[in-house]
């Protein structure tokens, strides 16, 4: 532990790993912010990450380029989003139930279709997005190589965080989004279509989570494995609560979770005599404690989780 602080190279490695582990969660968490700001719980983030990972692997496998993989990842996640919007917004079914149903469906579908499509090639690594250094910025001492020698999806995330903040807090669309999440009746009276905005928010949210899944396959491990999302979507849900339903806050919370995950991986290697399971639960314990300790004073969007039926109670 102490050697880590005295050795700048080890610390840089640790922070780089933290960032890489935070990126997929951050995509999902920012997606979750948009959906929950409109009043729809998106428990399906987990399934969307998995669907995105699956789409990325299959697209890259079939067309030979990671760009196609990214495109298919977004398509698969959008299909999940359409189901969620249809069930939760269209049919006004309990949003949590709809989300969980999608997670179960995605788990089964991706495992089954991956075996059908990838078959024996499932373990061969496929091409992905390689990191490239931004001239100038990457020359910053210490932080430059960590932050500005990364792949295109991570750069996209850097732009996404301020863009989402701007879209939510500084645009008319963001105002209607927040209004619907807080008081849909008033938004409806003002002539904003609640189902339309909610559907759009859910679709965006799932597409972003799908990009997070694509990142895992295209920039991290370069293969698809069953259930490879492994709870990241749920950590994203915790992160967005911790980040107070704000894209910047959610991103910072994701960096915290990425750091705790990187730290536990490091501990697994440095203390091989301690069973690794003790360390693998660290991100989840950290999420749990963070929620319990810091979330006491949170104020979620007032209408979150509630269905909206025009003229209903």
């Amino acid at each position, binding site marked *: 532990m102490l050697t880590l602080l005295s050795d700048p190279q080890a610390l840089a490695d640790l922070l780089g790993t933290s960032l890489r582990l935070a990126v997929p969660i951050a995509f999902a968490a920012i997606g979750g912010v948009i959906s929950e700001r409109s009043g729809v719980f998106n428990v399906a983030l987990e399934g969307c990450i998995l669907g995105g990972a699956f789409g990325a692997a299959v697209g890259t496998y079939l067309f030979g380029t990671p760009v196609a993989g990214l495109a298919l990842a977004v398509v698969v996640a959008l299909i999940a989003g359409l189901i969620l919007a249809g069930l939760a917004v269209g049919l006004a*079914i309990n949003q*949590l139930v709809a989300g969980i149903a999608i997670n179960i469906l995605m788990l089964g579908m991706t495992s*089954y279709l991956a075996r*059908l499509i990838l078959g024996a090639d499932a373990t061969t690594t496929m091409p992905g997005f390689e990191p490239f250094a931004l001239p100038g910025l990457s020359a910053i001492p210490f932080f430059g190589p960590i932050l500005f020698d990364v792949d295109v999806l991570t750069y996209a995330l850097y732009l996404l965080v301020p863009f989402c903040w701007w879209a939510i807090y500084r645009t008319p669309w963001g105002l209607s989004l927040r209004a619907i999440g807080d008081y849909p009746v008033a938004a409806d009276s003002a002539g904003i279509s609640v189902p339309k905005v909610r559907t759009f928010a859910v679709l965006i949210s799932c597409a972003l989570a799908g990009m997070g899944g694509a990142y895992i396959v295209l920039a991290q491990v370069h293969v698809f494995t069953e259930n490879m999302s492994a709870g990241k979507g*749920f950590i994203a849900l915790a992160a967005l609560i911790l980040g107070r339903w704000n894209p910047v806050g959610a991103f910072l919370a994701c960096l915290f979770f990425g750091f705790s995950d990187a730290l536990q991986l490091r501990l697994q290697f440095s203390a091989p005599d301690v069973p690794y*399971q003790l360390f693998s639960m660290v991100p*989840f314990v950290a999420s749990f404690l963070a929620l*319990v300790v810091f979330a006491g004073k949170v104020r979620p969007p007032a209408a979150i989780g509630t269905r909206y039926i025009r003229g209903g109670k």
Partner: protein
Amino acid sequence: MTNLVRYLFLLRPVWAVLMALIVGSGLILLAGVSPLGAYGELFRGAFLDYWGLAGTLVKTSPILLAGLAVILPLRAGLLNIGAEGQIYMGALFSAAAALYLPQMPTFLALPICVLAGALGGGLWGMIPGYFKAYHGLNEVILTILMNFIAINLVSYVAGGPMMQAGAPYPYSEEIRPSLWLPIILPQTDAHAGVVIGVALAMIMYFVLRYSTTGFALDTIGRNVNAARYAGVPVRPYLVGVMFVAGALGGLAGAFEVLGVKYRLYHHFSPGFGFDGIVVAFLAALNPILAPLAAFFLSGLKAGALVMQRATGLESTVIEAIQGLVIIFVAASLGLKLDAEKWAARLRGRERLDRAVGDTFRKQGAKDADATE
């Protein structure tokens, strides 16, 4: 006629399951296998064969108990996604009791081991219940996170302090045979857990329907302000209901240890806790229907392997179909029967008959005249 529509409508989860199976047959066709053949093998392997039936019953026990662990808190408006973690904690407590408590006569030791499992799951369920009731934290996210913590905790214990010396992968010592659950179908491993599960489902049905506790829970679920106004102590009820739900999940874990595995394995549950959510919705939150739903779902799972052996079709397709089932059932429950609209349609049809005529109706009317 309106009644017929009403009955057809009440059966909508059944139609939804059939629809899901039809859509699922599209998935089976993708693999180039005949859906009828595959479903035939599936249901034969799950229900029509002594060994297969026993295999289905072995899975019914944890899935039913997990289903009850979801249904009970949902009646009070809490969604318990934590049955999986509660199963693991129940198994941990139960295995610890079975392995470390001093030798006792079986009639004393077996109930203690079972109740230890219920206690473990109950305490694990109570934690998110407390934070929900007193701090307003979302119980869905807390229970999901606690699942991962419990699974890793059991992995750690089974691979560390409780691991059998020299075991190739994490599992504990074997539990002595006097603590094994009795078998209900001779020569199979169908244990008594499913009987206890069905009994608990009955008890839960009567408690929810006929007791003040059940009434209080339903009131909290439907209108928490009304419940508070009526003097129901809402917060203690929420903690209590999560304790009981966790205890049900814990029982499922205890029965897996004492009835099937006879050891504490790491990763022993293939997601029974999540199957519980499917059961809760298939049964439309009615405990009396939960055994049927759990039996059906267990049949799908047990039959999936038979199907894979017989047709070469990947058994993971059944997981996908299970997802389709819950989506279709959830969607069907979201549809509302507009009785007024149907009645209006049917009245319109009667008016049409009077204006245009209907051979059957006239025939019937003439018969009626003739008998007079």
